[in-house]
């Protein structure tokens, strides 16, 4: 039915008493996500969300008491690497970091460590993971996707919403939508998620949403050609972006000739991926 998160996901919210953490924890709970605990150092012992969710000082305390198996992070950027490491050290197998603006060197260090210690990180700077009808971990609006068999993976945030919304209007359902984040150093790549969708019996096909910068889409194309049996559709943003200009976030730098949208689209097409000309046309190219 899904990958990564489902009805069995027992969610911990790091930064639950912050403005964003609190807002989105409320949204997630309303969606039906099984939130079991929050962590805010110094606020352990409080209860939030109508007194239903206990707040802990430390992840290890929260995890031991509540059996959380997933954590979503809403702490400020300068504390994000520490929060990721704390979650990994607390034995949380799936960590979703929403926080934007995490320094690259913090991420390189944190990622090197957690990879060696067996936790999976989604993000940072990502909208999270949504399994429609089951679990919403992150900030993807819950009302723009219906359950189904299309897997969606994206480096982008609101562009993902645009695609989900376009699918929904055509009554096309989604198994799981994974926003892997737009930062140069992230925890989970297109490849990782494509492999999961390929193995998921409830996913029939995949929509990949890429953008300029890096070579992630090219490597995804290679993986699709070599390892995917399920059909893949795609959209790549940034055809009109000028080379060598920074477009909003670090993932969107055109790095010296490579990283161009046109090259990415060509690579995907040659791997048999049907590429939509614009996000509204995604429903036309899915199988």
């Amino acid at each position, binding site marked *: 039915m899904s990958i990564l998160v489902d009805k069995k996901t027992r969610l911990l919210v790091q930064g639950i008493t912050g403005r964003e953490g609190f807002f989105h924890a409320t949204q997630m709970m309303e969606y039906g996500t099984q939130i079991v605990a929050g962590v805010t150092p110094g606020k352990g012992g409080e209860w939030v969300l109508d007194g239903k969710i206990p707040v802990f000082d430390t992840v290890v305390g929260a995890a031991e008491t509540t059996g959380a198996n997933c954590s979503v992070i809403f702490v400020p950027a300068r504390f994000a690497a520490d929060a990721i490491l704390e979650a990994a050290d607390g034995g949380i197998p799936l960590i979703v970091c929403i926080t934007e603006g995490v320094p690259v060197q913090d991420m390189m260090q944190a990622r090197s*460590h957690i990879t060696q210690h067996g936790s999976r990180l989604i993000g940072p700077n990502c909208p999270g993971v949504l399994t429609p009808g089951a679990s919403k971990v992150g900030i993807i609006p819950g009302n723009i996707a219906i359950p189904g068999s299309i897997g969606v993976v994206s480096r982008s945030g609101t562009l993902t919403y645009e695609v989900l919304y376009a699918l929904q209007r055509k009554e096309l359902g989604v198994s799981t939508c994974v926003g892997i984040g737009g930062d140069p*150093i992230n925890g989970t790549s297109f490849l990782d998620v494509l492999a999961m969708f390929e193995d998921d019996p409830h996913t029939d096909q995949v929509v990949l949403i890429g953008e300029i910068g890096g070579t992630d889409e090219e490597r995804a194309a290679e993986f699709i050609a070599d390892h995917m049996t399920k059909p893949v559709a795609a959209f790549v943003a940034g055809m009109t972006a000028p080379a060598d200009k920074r477009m909003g976030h670090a993932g969107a730098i055109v790095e010296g000739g490579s990283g161009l949208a046109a090259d990415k689209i060509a690579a995907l097409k040659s791997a048999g991926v049907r590429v939509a000309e614009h996000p509204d046309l995604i429903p036309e190219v899915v199988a």
Partner: protein
Amino acid sequence: MKLHEYQAKQIFSQYGIAIPRGRVASTASEAKSVAQELGGRVVVKSQVLVGGRGKAGGIRLANTPSEAEEVATQILAMQVKGLPVRKVLVDEAATIVEEIYLGVTNDRGARSPVMIASSEGGIEIEEVARIMPERLFRITIEPLLGLREYQARYLAASIELRRELWREFVGIAQGLYTAYTESDATLAEINPLVITGDGRLIALDAKMVVDDNALFRHAELAEMRDFDEEAPPEREARKYGLSYVKLDGDIGCMVNGAGLAMATMDVIKLFGGEPANFLDIGGGAGADKVAAALGIILSDSNVQAVLFNIFGGITRCDEVARGILMALKEVSTDVPMVVRLTGTNEAEGQRILAEADMLTAGSLSEAAQTAVSLANERHSV
């Protein structure tokens, strides 16, 4: 954030990397007196944050202080790729025996720093990668361990550096790596690193790009930002935490999210229009931020139409609607606009816009088509 050559050199020098004696100057007479202090031949180098200074004539030799003054006068009057030159670096000229490349940057694929060295310095490393990739050597650095001596020696051996310079080279590589990590840089580069006539290694040029996200812990670097090198709208955008890039088209656009902003530009182009800018208002922008963003878009006189594309998630549609109306009160304009709002608090946003008789669209395609027609109509007027 890019640093100027003279700034990067100062930093590298703090990490034990030898640089030519020299100083930055803002006027030709200042350049002359630096040349007098240094004695002998000097190089006068324009300090602008774009590549291709050399080809543009922005780097010139001067044999005497008065020649340095003359050359500086010319350089300070020129533009490099549209950027006016406001400062020159006056360095003593070195006798160059060999030119090496040495740089460290982030490798997205390996999710680690990578150090690159080549015996072919003095030309752009992308060029080396293209024409003689066999002369380019790279090592992946484990971020938790840092650059190890043996790795630096591996690079020295690979580029066939003469052995008596290995120890010095290892010191430079470690200095460069430490400068890179301690400054939270995304790029630290010496090109060329030269072997001088008297057998020393000196960094003749220096480039450094610092991670904007890490500036909060580097007050000293944040102060190095050269605001003169930014166009006023970019500067204004940064003040409000907006990402703005001016482009050459006539359809202004304001979007939440970088990916969606690029997609919006792509769709405009697809329907025959030309985007005037990239503008990402980010997540959760309030009314004042939206107003500031609109002001920036309209400051571009090329703009003939404006497209708003907001997919509310963290961002609330009613806030955006209010921001647009607030801005329109301050900026009197006759540029036509179309708004596409979806998501969080959509109904309330739509109501506010309807009350103000704003033109709206139901989908991104529709909004883009409308914006293109509006711009075309206005042109034909």
